[in-house]
């Protein structure tokens, strides 16, 4: 359990900036998700914290101690890799015991600690199994146990469930969350799955091209995205470019009054916040209705070809070709990559 401080960290590979002037403080026992598309620098950042990459500049400190240049074998961190990275020539017990043996602990203590951590991850009695005899989920649990058995101050998880199927992924992430809360271990979790980040994290760091776009709790990131990129990346979002003239946002097929100065703007509306009503004007026409049972998603084409998504309670109420009027219930307005107005959130 520890506090992690990342100050002005930059990583440059050759001429490519992978992470740029990144700052973050992770509180003791907090679980922070690093979320972003491929190439956003989230794994590089995690690898710098783990010691597998060295920061070009900046400071990484754990409990106030600068570890920026400390090699991974001397850092108080434990990493779980995407590919499990289990040592296939060792059985489960030996995989877990390896780090403890390097620390020259007595065999009896090693046995006790390995058995205890196997119990914690739900693999009691699996010690003598070979790693290839385990399922993907069990292998990932062993990888997690291998890190936990050393009682690291910071637990780092690099897309640990990416290779697992959806059902197993959901189950494992709940288990990880329970375990993390029980052990109160400071954790960083890299993912490119927004649902995973929303379900797990105390805070989410949204990364784009090596820079953090937003660092906030999941509900804030979802309901009040700081930039159009975050708005578009988290959940489904309708992003509509238009112009504000005389306090009215104008886009073909959509006029919306708002207290915003004149100029170009981007309107962001979630499908569940986009109200639709039958209309006579053909400025917005339903293209397709997809029935999900509990709700329907209605695809709407605007006059300029932009396609929006709206959520409706009943698919049977709508049909393709119907003209509709749009009424955003909650929305945000962005200008120059900054939110300048929010309504109804």
């Amino acid at each position, binding site marked *: 359990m520890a506090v992690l401080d990342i100050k002005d960290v930059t990583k440059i590979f050759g001429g490519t900036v992978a992470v740029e002037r990144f700052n973050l403080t992770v509180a003791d026992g907090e679980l922070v998700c690093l979320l972003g598309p491929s190439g956003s620098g989230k794994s590089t950042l995690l690898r710098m914290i783990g010691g597998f990459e060295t920061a070009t500049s900046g400071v990484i400190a754990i409990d106030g101690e600068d570890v920026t240049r400390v090699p991974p074998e001397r850092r108080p961190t434990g990493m779980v890799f995407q590919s499990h990275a289990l040592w296939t020539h060792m059985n489960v017990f030996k995989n877990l015991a390896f780090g403890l043996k*390097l620390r020259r602990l007595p065999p009896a203590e090693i046995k006790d600690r390995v058995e205890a951590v196997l119990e914690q991850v739900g693999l009691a009695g699996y010690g003598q199994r070979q790693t290839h005899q385990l399922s993907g989920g069990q292998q990932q649990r062993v990888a997690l146990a291998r890190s936990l058995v050393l009682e690291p101050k910071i637990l780092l998880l690099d897309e640990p469930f990416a290779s697992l199927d959806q059902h197993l992924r959901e189950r494992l992430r709940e288990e990880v969350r329970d375990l993390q809360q029980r052990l109160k271990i400071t954790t960083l979790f890299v993912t490119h799955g927004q649902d995973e980040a929303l379900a797990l994290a105390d805070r989410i760091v949204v990364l784009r091209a090596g820079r953090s776009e937003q660092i906030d709790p999941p509900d804030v990131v979802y309901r009040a995205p700081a930039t159009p990129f975050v708005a578009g990346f988290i959940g489904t979002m309708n992003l509509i470019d238009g112009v504000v003239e005389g306090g009215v946002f104008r886009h073909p097929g959509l006029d919306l009054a708002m207290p915003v100065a004149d100029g170009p703007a981007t309107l962001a509306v979630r499908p569940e916040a986009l109200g639709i009503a039958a209309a006579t004007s053909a400025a917005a026409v339903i293209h397709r209705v997809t029935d999900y049972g509990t709700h329907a998603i209605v695809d709407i084409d605007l006059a300029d070809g932009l396609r929006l998504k709206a959520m409706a309670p009943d698919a049977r109420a709508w049909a393709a070709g119907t003209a509709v009027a749009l009424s955003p219930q909650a929305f945000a307005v962005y200008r120059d990559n900054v939110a300048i107005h929010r309504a109804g959130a």
Partner: protein
Amino acid sequence: MIIWPILSAIGRTLWLPGADGVSRFSLETYVFFFSDQYSINNLMVTLWTTGVCALLLLPICLPIALYLRFAKGRLAAYVQGLAIFPMFVPSIILSYAIIRVLGPNGTVDLLFNSVGLPKIRSPYLTPWGPVIGLVWDNIPLTVLILLSGLGAVSDQSVEAARDVGARRWAVLWHIILPRITNSILVAISFTVLGIFSAFTLPYVLGPAAPEMMGPFMQRTFRDLNDPTNAITQAVISFAFCIVFGLFYVRSVAKNRKT
């Protein structure tokens, strides 16, 4: 094409024609080989050369293969080119290059002389001559085999070891070497097979006596015009090689199973 010459060779050394022209079973040629001190010495020098080469190749090639596996950048590409280069040099060229460099009045002697140092004890025409040549000649194959084995060791498994506290030697000993045991066995089997039956390098660089089995067979066959004893020497060489061949087959079979 392979089995028949082997069976034929064994048959021709075990069924010898008598004075009456009728063939009969006899271990005479084998008894001669193992009772002849010169033949035994030749076999011993062959085994010694093979063993020393295998012992030298592993500590030379393993660091090169490890470097090539884990290093990134242009220097690694140059090192790889240098390591593979001997593969494209014919043995006869290599032999004369070694004579020119390490032989009496060779490059090394000239350089030493120019700075007032005494001449070296040249390995040319000693058992160490073929050892130097054969080691150099076998570096590419050994490096390539070890490199293919190291391909199965993922970066992440090494990183995971470092993450739990393993330093370089611990990673090598506990993580990398156990994963490439089969490749090491295959590399040793291949080099031993090649070195045991080597001809050119021992013939040009080695001593006249004792000589390695390759030149010994050739001389027995051509200079002494004694094909039966030459074939006996070949069968005995084959018997030693097949042990390492079986090592190789076992390693391949084990690999397939896992």
